[in-house]
């Protein structure tokens, strides 16, 4: 990891800043910032409608494009989840949900939500919009590549959606796509469906690599004057680490996609041992299905953090701004993000405790997994300590942050169950797992996304979202989602296995019928309550209260652009110069309760600001 050595530099950096700026007392020297290293970036300015809004090279527009595309696929995923829940809660109520269709819904829901919705939304959407603004760059470093990245993603989504309409329908292999079952006739969509899925994933990886290079290099190499790594908002740290993970984890996905495509189309036997199906020995032989699982989870586990880390980062910023207090233990937060990211490459097989891998791996992976619990727990502590003796605005954004903390702590703790190998054995492949990961990487990141939308909507559109509708939206979503997934853990305790189209009358499951019905109803309500959100966004675009500059009184750079919403090139004529971290809220001795990052020290001479 690139950031492994950050801490070491801090004392040295402090020294150097003392020698360069702190030696004399005059205000000019206090404000000294190293001169620019880089020349101005020359940008391509679109002229026509097409170059301005469609094939646009402005990261902000690309971010919105990513956001909208991801939300569209997310809505498809949401509808699929209703259909699944309808079958589970009220079997045979909807006649067209057959077992084949049910499994196709399960698969597409999972894949869409994890990859095409959450990953694309956090990194493609928020990443594109916020990175250049928050680090003080005019745009991403390679705007053209960035544009191609979005269109690759768009094509990937189209290919994915196309699989709904091919003969045999989309793949029903489960989102993990485990071979041999994924490419054998016993699984729905094992011909065109799975091929389109693999092609779509490969396209996604290629597109994402282009975007990821942009995010990483913009953050590492295109920051503005004064913006050290340790002055970046945690949002950027989260997105940066997640992108670094993605660059190193997606290759494993790509490789497994290529190999499975070859198994399917050319009849190679990478993952395919001798198989006897329907009384016939297939032409495969000697391959290893577990290899796929290793490759998949070598991607899959970092993927979990690709979704979680940006959420961690964003929520830290939201909490800090709306609690009007600096984030507690910023340095530790950064180290926790980076540490979690690095460790996430050493824990993948905790998804495979009962997969039949070498049993001795259990010890290694249980240990590494529980080690991750430590930095994660520290982050949680820091969030709530930030709230302590703060001045908390109880607006929609803060509500979503609190909702995040509750669901994340809940999901994190059930994660300790599943990470600890002996505890995992009875619980794996049951509804406990479903409940756990929906809580921790479904609901919790969603809470952050929604909070972030309420927070940054004024920046993107120049208008505020309605607080009243926002609060209704929050309570429906939070209470609804919590009452879906909290009881679901208990289904897992009973031992109900996941991916069951129907339970029939298994003795220990009939008792849960009532709960299944309740969960289904809750899921429908939560889903429909998102209409409030959409309605809020659509109406606020035209009738929302004009936001003006910096409506939240935040410190970070994205609110300090000359125009709101920011124009192409972000900063007008002169790039901003940074003097501090973005968390100087309620500094003793300062006139206002916030000091923006661009405020030079000479203007707040009386404030007891700590050196950052």
């Amino acid at each position, binding site marked *: *990891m*690139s950031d*492994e*050595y950050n801490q070491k530099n801090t004392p040295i950096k402090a020294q150097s800043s003392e020698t360069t700026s702190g030696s004399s007392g005059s205000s000019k020297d206090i404000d000294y910032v190293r001169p620019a290293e*880089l*020349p101005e970036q020359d940008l391509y300015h679109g002229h026509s409608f097409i170059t301005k809004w469609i094939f646009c090279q402005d990261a902000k527009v690309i971010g919105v494009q990513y956001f909208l595309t991801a939300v569209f696929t997310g809505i498809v995923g949401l509808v699929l989840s209703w259909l699944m829940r309808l079958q589970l809660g009220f079997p045979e109520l909807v006649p067209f949900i057959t077992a084949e269709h049910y499994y196709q819904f399960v698969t597409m829901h999972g894949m869409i939500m994890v990859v095409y919705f959450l990953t694309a939304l956090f990194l493609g959407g928020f990443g594109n919009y916020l990175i250049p603004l928050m680090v003080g760059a005019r745009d991403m470093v390679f705007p053209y590549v960035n544009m191609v990245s979005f269109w690759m993603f768009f094509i990937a989504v189209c290919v994915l959606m196309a699989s709904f309409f091919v003969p045999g329908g989309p793949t029903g292999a489960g989102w993990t796509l485990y071979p041999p079952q994924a490419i054998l006739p016993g699984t729905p969509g094992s011909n065109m469906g799975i091929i389109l899925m693999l092609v779509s994933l490969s396209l996604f990886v290629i597109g994402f690599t282009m975007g990821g290079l942009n995010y990483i290099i913009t953050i590492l190499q295109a920051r503005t004057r004064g913006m050290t790594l340790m002055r970046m908002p945690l949002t950027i740290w989260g997105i940066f680490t997640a992108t670094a993970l993605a660059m*190193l984890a997606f290759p494993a996905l790509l490789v497994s996609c290529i190999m499975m495509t070859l198994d399917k189309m050319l009849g190679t036997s990478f993952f395919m*041992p*001798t198989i006897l199906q329907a009384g016939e020995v297939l032409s495969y*032989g*000697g391959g*290893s299905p*577990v*290899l796929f699982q*290793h490759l998949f989870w*070598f991607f899959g586990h970092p993927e979990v953090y690709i979704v979680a880390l940006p959420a961690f980062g964003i929520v830290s910023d939201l909490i800090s701004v709306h609690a009007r207090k600096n984030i507690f233990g910023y340095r530790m937060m950064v180290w926790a993000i980076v540490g979690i990211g690095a460790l996430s*490459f*050493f824990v993948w*097989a905790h998804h495979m405790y009962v997969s039949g*891998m*070498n049993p*001795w*791996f259990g010890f*290694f992976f249980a240990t590494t997994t529980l080690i991750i619990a430590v930095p994660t727990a520290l982050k949680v502590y820091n969030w709530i300590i930030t709230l302590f003796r703060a001045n908390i605005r109880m607006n929609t954004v803060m509500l979503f942050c609190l909702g995040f903390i509750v669901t994340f702590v809940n999901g994190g703790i059930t994660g300790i169950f599943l990470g600890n190998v002996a505890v995992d054995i009875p619980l794996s492949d049951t509804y406990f797992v479903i409940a756990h990961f929906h809580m921790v990487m479904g609901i919790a990141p969603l809470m952050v996304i929604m909070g972030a939308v309420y927070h940054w909507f004024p920046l993107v559109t120049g208008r505020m979202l309605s607080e009243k509708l926002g609060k209704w939206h929050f309570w429906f979503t939070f209470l609804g989602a919590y009452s879906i997934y909290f009881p679901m853990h208990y289904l897992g305790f009973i031992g109900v296995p996941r991916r069951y189209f129907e339970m029939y009358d298994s003795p220990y499951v009939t008792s849960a019928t009532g709960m299944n019905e309740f969960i289904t109803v809750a899921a429908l309500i939560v889903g429909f309550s998102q209409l409030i959100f959409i309605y809020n966004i659509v109406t606020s675009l035209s009738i929302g209260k004009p936001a003006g500059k910096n409506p939240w009184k935040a410190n970070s750079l994205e609110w300090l652009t000359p125009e709101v919403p920011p124009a192409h090139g972000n900063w007008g004529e002169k790039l901003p110069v940074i003097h501090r971290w973005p968390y100087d809220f309620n500094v003793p001795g300062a006139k206002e309760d916030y000091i923006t990052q661009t405020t030079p020290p000479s203007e707040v001479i009386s404030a007891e600001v700590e050196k950052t």
Partner: protein
Amino acid sequence: MNEIENKETVASTHKIGIYLWIWGLLFVLSFFSYMVDWFQFQGLLRWTLILIFMFLKAGLIMAFFMHLFWERYALVNVLLWPMTAIACFIGLMAAEAKYTVLTRLLYFFTGG
């Protein structure tokens, strides 16, 4: 832009001799690793030699042809640390492969 170019010029116009040296060394090392097969060394010796020549060649290409030797440590470290993840993956997969072949030999009587 100018400044950066100048720096690059400083950083990479090394004497031609060094490239020719490395080039020659690569040829020699390739020849050696080919000889490992030619003389049909087996077992530990074969593996030791293969790996030594491989890493030497890879190291020379990276260090000199790809200029990593002259790059600042920040870049070098960013590029090399992620390899620990790969190393871990290799080690565990080697163990996994051994385990797979073990169960196959124990319970199957023809190819798995």
